[in-house]
């Protein structure tokens, strides 16, 4: 049915995970935002913080309570660890054994992020050539999800069927409850491994009917608060039929092609490959780093880039995310997390762009 732990119990839970050799990664306040970083206990979590988000806007604000997860998503996502911004793909004459890295335990993963991980799993592991680097980071990863207690104005996971409740892909899922019965967490198990871990938490007690009901109310409250909506249409058909719609010129006049959206998007996966040698030319290596379809280089073939205009690059990003992704991988590439809206310097809103094109049908 479920369990309930208080804040001490949560620390026992985290300790139990750490004892198993995992490296705990969770939300932390850093550089004026809530990012992901190494944590040891609940003391490292952004207690009492929330975020205010809108197109091109992100601010941290103090809450009136001490909620540990009382915020939505920041500029980073588990992609930071599963598909890091820079990696070495290959070394000529690799020196010695590669150090075993501790598997990751992601604490506080939102439903939209779970969906994004599933989407990247499909990209990196589901094709003919699974990526060994992603596989190594993803393998054994422990996931403690959190059901959102509030929605930012830029959230639209409901209309993308990607939240706010975590449905699958986690070992444990928490719902934070702060009410007359105290500050506690409903814990749902998702795997046998999760069951084992909660079994090692002395402070865990079985959930009562009113705990479960309170958790459901929290989720319902979040659903009601959703800030935006992606139009409920066949986006693939809509965008395929409108590749030369005048709206693309309109958005191009605003888009700076800065690529922020691709950096913060939890599903964007483009990367570039660079071959280097050491200064003496003795050791050749191949490096991978995040790339963005907004760069001119991205579509470069001898003679020049194919996508020179910002219009063509914005169109590429949006139609890939919402339409061609479906043909390529069987699902949408968008999880409704709203990061692209928040972190766009000019506040371009992907839901608004779709709605405008759709209004013309």
């Amino acid at each position, binding site marked *: 049915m479920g369990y309930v732990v208080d804040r001490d119990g949560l620390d026992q839970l985290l300790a139990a995970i750490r004892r198993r050799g995992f490296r705990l990664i969770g939300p932390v306040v850093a550089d004026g935002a809530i990012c992901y970083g190494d944590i040891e206990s609940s003391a490292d979590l952004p207690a009492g913080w929330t975020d205010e988000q809108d197109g091109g806007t992100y601010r941290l604000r103090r809450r009136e309570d001490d909620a540990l997860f009382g915020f939505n998503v920041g500029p980073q996502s588990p992609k930071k660890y599963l598909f890091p911004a820079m990696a070495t793909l290959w070394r000529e004459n690799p020196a010695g054994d590669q150090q075993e890295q501790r598997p990751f335990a992601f604490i506080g993963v939102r439903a939209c992020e779970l969906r994004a991980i599933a989407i990247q799993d499909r990209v990196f592991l589901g094709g003919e050539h699974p990526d060994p680097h992603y596989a190594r980071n993803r393998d054994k990863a422990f996931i403690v999800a959190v059901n959102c207690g509030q929605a930012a104005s830029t959230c639209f996971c409901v209309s993308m069927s990607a939240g706010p409740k975590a449905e699958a892909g986690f070992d444990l899922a928490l719902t934070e409850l702060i009410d007359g019965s105290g500050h506690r967490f409903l814990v749902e198990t998702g795997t046998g491994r999760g069951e084992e871990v909660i079994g090692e938490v002395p402070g865990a007690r079985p959930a009562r009917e009113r705990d479960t009901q309170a958790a459901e109310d929290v989720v319902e409250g979040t659903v009601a608060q959703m800030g935006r909506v992606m139009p409920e249409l066949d986006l693939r058909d809509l965008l395929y039929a409108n590749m030369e719609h005048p709206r693309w010129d309109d958005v191009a006049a605003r888009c700076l092609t800065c690529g922020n959206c691709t950096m913060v998007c939890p599903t964007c996966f483009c990367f570039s490959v660079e071959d280097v040698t050491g200064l003496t030319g003795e050791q050749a290596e191949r490096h991978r780093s995040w790339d963005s379809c907004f760069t001119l280089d991205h579509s470069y073939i001898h003679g*020049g880039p194919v996508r020179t205009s910002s219009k063509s690059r914005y169109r590429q990003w949006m139609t890939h995310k919402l339409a061609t992704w479906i043909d390529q991988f069987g699902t949408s590439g968008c999880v409704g997390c709203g990061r692209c809206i928040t972190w766009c310097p000019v506040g371009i809103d992907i839901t608004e762009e779709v709605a405008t094109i759709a209004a013309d049908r």
Partner: protein
Amino acid sequence: MPRTAEPHPLDRLLRDHQFFAGLDPDYLTLLAGCAKNVVVPQGVFLFREGEPADKFFLIRDGRAALEVAAPGRGAIVVQSFAAGDVLGFSWLTGRQHRWQFDGRVIERIHALEMDGACLRGKCDQDPKLGYELMRRFAALASDTLQATRLQLLDVYGHVG
């Protein structure tokens, strides 16, 4: 117009050339009156740049080319013609046109040399004939323009 008792031998050659496919046989007879069956050996110029352009050629066999010469570049071939092709279309405009290029035989040709002034006279008398010829030559000019544009794009010269 009087129908001849038996078809002029040139009628047959005109009819067999794909350019006049579908043309009324009576018109073919008319056209035959402006036609000359020629055999031109390799290397001979059919016309020179600057000469009055008052004829055209229906190539039946062999190869010809439109060429232009420039100092330091020698002679450059801009288009080649073979069996089934038509060489020359500015005669129909009636302006005092001159050839812009040299026409030269590359491999001995069998061709029908058509007298432009003669044909224009017949078209003036019978506008329907004029329309038939105009349609065909408009298509030819259009096709040639398209090909020329594609050559101008120098697609192989630019990588990609």
